[in-house]
């Protein structure tokens, strides 16, 4: 079984914080892109069954419906997608009820909606093109269309955000009872409009409070945290994302998409024209050390961490012996737990980069 990722790099408008591979104003290229990605899917050499499919972006739903449907069909034909977790990302007000029905008809059974905030001023600051009401409408339409597995992306650390406004966002979103909530902290990346703007960002203490509040509030309201930023009702965690963290095989199609197949990583061209005209995937054969490093830092993203015995078996190492210095140091600081599994504590999560980097 394999995971399939399809990248649709188009948006109505790029957000101020976005450093993903996506474009606005590229309407003319959408058809050519569709042809190319279908060709890439159909030419994939190995026949495999998929158990997860994820359409991400960009905003996949900004693609014309007939084009989107053709790509979905190509995936369905190539990989036996029956009983799949089939997710598509959508932004509020980029889909109609009719469109949602069409997606359902083609096997899409999970919808991930980027709401980010329930405060319209904050949405504006982020450069989003929708209001919170737009989200509620889209959410209800999705329910009407039969989507019984919906994720809402929310964000903290937004310019001008306060702990109270974040609390309200959580309440307003939870009230709709999505099955899954992703809760990310805003990170100002180089090359984004935010990078060069003077922003009134919540200070680190407040951000930490926001995160801790989200963790306990979502727990109280019946969401189980299974990864640094992901929360789900029982049994509703995102199987596709778990594949990334557990280093299962996955194939990525489209601009800049990555694949991991038996410890070989491929990455498509990141330049749109080059991808369409002559995609040359980069190939990287991961060494055991690379794989181990990934195993650790991806595994630590999960709330449960990862099983030590399993890792020892895969990489033929004595885990404690190899990382004694780091383990002892962080155990002493209460930033990790170490038993059958190794995992980050709540405090460990907020400084996870530092901890992970020491395992590299």
């Amino acid at each position, binding site marked *: 079984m394999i995971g399939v990722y399809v990248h649709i790099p188009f948006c109505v408008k790029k957000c101020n914080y976005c450093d993903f591979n996506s474009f606005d104003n590229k309407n003319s290229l959408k058809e050519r892109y569709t042809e190319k990605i279908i060709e890439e899917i159909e030419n994939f050499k190995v026949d495999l069954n998929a158990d997860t499919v994820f359409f991400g972006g960009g905003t996949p739903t900004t693609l014309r419906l007939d084009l989107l449907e053709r790509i979905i069909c190509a995936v369905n034909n190539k990989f036996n997608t029956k009983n799949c977790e089939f997710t598509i990302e959508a932004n509020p007000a980029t889909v109609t009820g009719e469109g949602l029905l069409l997606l359902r008809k083609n096997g899409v059974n999970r919808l991930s909606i980027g709401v980010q905030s329930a405060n319209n001023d904050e949405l504006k600051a982020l450069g989003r093109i929708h209001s919170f009401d737009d989200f509620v409408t889209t959410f209800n339409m999705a329910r009407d269309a039969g989507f019984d597995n919906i994720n809402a992306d929310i964000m903290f650390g937004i310019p001008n955000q306060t702990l109270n406004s974040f609390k309200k966002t959580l309440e307003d979103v939870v009230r709709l009872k999505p099955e899954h909530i992703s809760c*990310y902290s805003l990170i100002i990346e180089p090359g984004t409009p935010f990078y060069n703007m003077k922003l009134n960002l919540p200070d680190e203490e407040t951000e930490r409070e926001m995160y801790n509040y989200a963790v306990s509030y979502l727990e109280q309201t019946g969401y189980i945290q299974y990864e640094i930023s992901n929360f789900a009702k029982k049994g509703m965690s995102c199987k596709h994302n778990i594949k*990334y963290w557990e280093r299962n095989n996955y194939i*990525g199609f489209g601009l800049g*998409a990555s694949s991991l197949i038996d410890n070989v990583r491929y990455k498509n061209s990141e330049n749109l024209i080059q991808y369409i005209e002559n995609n040359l995937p980069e190939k990287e054969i991961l060494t055991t050390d690379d794989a181990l490093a990934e195993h650790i*830092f991806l595994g630590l*993203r999960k709330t449960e961490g990862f099983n030590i015995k399993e890792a020892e078996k895969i990489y033929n190492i004595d885990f404690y012996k190899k990382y004694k210095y780091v383990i002892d140091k962080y155990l002493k600081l209460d930033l990790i737990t170490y038993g059958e599994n190794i995992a980050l504590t709540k405090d460990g999560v*907020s*400084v996870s980069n530092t901890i992970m980097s020491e395992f*590299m």
Partner: protein
Amino acid sequence: MSDNIRNFCIIAHIDHGKSTLADRLLEHTGVLTAREMEEQILDNMDLERERGITIKARAVRVVYNARDGKQYILNLIDTPGHVDFNYEVSRSLAACEGAVLVVDASQGIEAQTLANTYLAIDNNLELVPVINKIDLPSAQPQVVKDEIENVIGIPAQDSPLISAKQGIGIEEVLEKIVQDVPPPKGDIDKPLSALIFDSYYDAYKGVIIYCRVFDGQVKVGDTIRLMATGKEFDVVEVGYLNPLGMVPSNNLSVGEVGYIAASIKNVSDTRVGDTVTLAQNPTKEPLPGYRKVNPMVFCGIYPADGAHYEDLRDALGKLQLNDASLSFEPETSIALGFGFRCGFLGLLHMEIIQERLEREYNLDLVTTAPSVIYHCFKTNGEEIDIDNPTNLPPAVEIAYMEEPMVDANIMLPTDYVGNIMELCQQRRGIYKDMKYLDSTRVTLHYELPLNEIIYDFFDALKSRTKGYASFDYELCGYQRSSLVKLDMLLNGEMVDALSLIVHTDKAYERGRRIAEKLKEAIPRQLFEIPIQAAVGSKIIARETVKAMRKDVLAKCYGGDITRKKKLLEKQKEGKKRMRQVGSVEVPQEAFMSVLKLD
């Protein structure tokens, strides 16, 4: 026979054009073709050329056909210009009968002009003043001539007015040398007596001695004795130097300047200032003035990467082959691991060595704050010398301490006098006197503790006078002083590499500033780090590096793990440049940032 020899050197303040004039003299006497004429040929170390300073003396022999129709052999002995190398300068001067005194036509007399002039006068040299840079629009040759007469007290009205850069007046200088500098005296029949003024290690010939023969002669096959060390060697080669290298000859005779190679392995056997004589027929009295030079400034030098300890030892050993005044011995620091305590003649010497280690030997270094030698008198009557603050006994065992003092002469425009007096007072200076050189310039004479000038005194002096001040100093003895050891603590643990010995009155201020500097230099870590300055058990200053709150990966998107991995790897790379001090990671820069507190 030695009537046609002239042994001379050139003395000047830094940047007054000494090296350029040397080039022109060589060019004019025709020993170099234009192609061979690299700029400033006497300074053949890269570093010297770049910094425009001469570190090691060199001697060159040229032939000049003078206007009187006779042919003269001119031996130009180049001298280091900086105060750190004062002793080397004085030995070079002792090898000469005359000195060309170069003064910049717009700058006039500066601190080093005077210091070098006094050295020359001490060595009974005939001074030949020369006014350089007369091509500059700001040149005031008459003012400078008067200044030379008033300040130094030698006639200067008929001094050659030259521009070494433009090649103007060079022959005038050569004529002056021939006319004014006396020929060497001496007796070829007396036992050999030759002064070592420099030596260096050659990979093929062993140590090469540069010397000036005062009496007698030396030839291949002779057995020489070095009088200070008593060691004897068989002479393999003698000769003189032209600008392009060594020219072997049959012998070196009275009045001549040249080199001796005698398969000597160790440069420290051939001490500058020592006398060379013959083992068979030794002279009774060595030439006057020899003394062993002792380092005045010390610091710890550590490899940034502990794995390069042996490389550092190797490099220091190689540098020492050519620089007997550099000392080093192994030391261990809890914070920095294995390294060396190195001794230098002064601050510039220290900087030069550090730079050469990094440049020529490609080493990444961490250096600790420079220290001087303190005399520590213990209550049990014992007396010890302290060159490393870590070795200072506990306060209760100390009866009293002494610190080295220097006589400092600062020359500056009158406008800045108030400013600089204030600086000297801050540095615990004792005012001696002030002399007006003319209506716009004065020389300030202060007695200052050496430990107050080894940090950033020179920088402070320059910045407070817009670069117009010049400065020169000489060790003048020890003085009883109230000194304490200032320790820095990170997360409660003392960092030995950051300890300093300071005057009691300065401890609080310095401790506070260092704590502030460390706060800037140490990145936030997973826990709060108190930075404390302490004297004994008393905490006198405190800062805190707050704990890091947020350091999280963004959304891992579309399986793009590689990018995240690179981020983490980069973070890890950054850590490699850190030193683990107890539980705290300290960047190497932090150890150095405490040196610059102004």
